[in-house]
């Protein structure tokens, strides 16, 4: 219990792919956009976003597993935990960067009206 608690607090909410929801909008894209080359490109970008989110989720699971393993030992050092943390943080940065690249790539395929219909504010 303590280990699971420490693990979730260590991951600090960075575990969630904050832009991962974008990848789940294929259905909206199919409804809102005309079936043409632009739609095809938008769907291809979403597919890529889904793929890298999947990779990210695997990295989070591994970090959580490594942390839990480390926390299990009373003799674990700050350095050992920090090493896991550093790798985790590098992954967060890379993932956010890649997702943003793809988000702006997606925007190139979708006009303003379509965008607002696919991603409503609420």
């Amino acid at each position, binding site marked *: *219990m*303590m280990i*699971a608690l420490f693990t979730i*607090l260590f991951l600090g909410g*960075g575990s969630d792919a904050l832009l991962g929801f974008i990848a789940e909008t294929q259905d909206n894209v199919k409804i809102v956009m005309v079936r043409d080359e632009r739609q095809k490109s938008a769907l291809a970008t979403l597919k890529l976003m889904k793929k890298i989110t999947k990779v990210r989720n695997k990295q989070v699971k591994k970090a959580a597993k490594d942390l839990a393993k480390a926390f*299990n030992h009373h003799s674990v050092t700050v350095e050992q935990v920090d090493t896991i*943390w550093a790798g985790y943080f590098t992954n*967060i940065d890379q993932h956010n960067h890649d997702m*943003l690249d793809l988000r702006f790539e997606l925007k190139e395929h979708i006009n303003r009206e379509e965008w607002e219909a696919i991603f409503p504010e609420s």
Partner: protein
Amino acid sequence: MNASFRICKSFLAFPVILSIAGGCAGKSDLSPLDVQKQAFEDLRTEIREVIGNPQRSTEAIALVDDLEGELTALREKILARKIRAKQLNANYDTTRAEFDEFFERINRDIRLNQQRVTKSHRAFLAITTPDEWSQIAKVRTKVMSATIKANQAI
């Protein structure tokens, strides 16, 4: 804690777990925060049982109080981050710089969170023996598992 008591607790926890796992909040009066509160109460009880020394036990429980506060705050932060991420994305005119600033702020927050938790973790290790730590670490209740899953599912 003996096995029969744990089994009994597991049965008591079962409806709570179902309400979380099934997402049927309307069928239960317990909110995720109520479940979390119960989970931490269980944890405090277990710590009192494992750490016999009253002074160290009190210190450990004070640390658990801090961790409960951290978990509650984290839950609120995750919710706020998700809402903000959706708002930024929904705006067609949001710039890359605005997203970068958003992520940098979150990353700073996560690093600060990590420093606070590191401190609590070290303090916990300092007041427990390897045997006590091992026992506390191994203890699991379904209510706490449900709390953690509920936080991960936000």
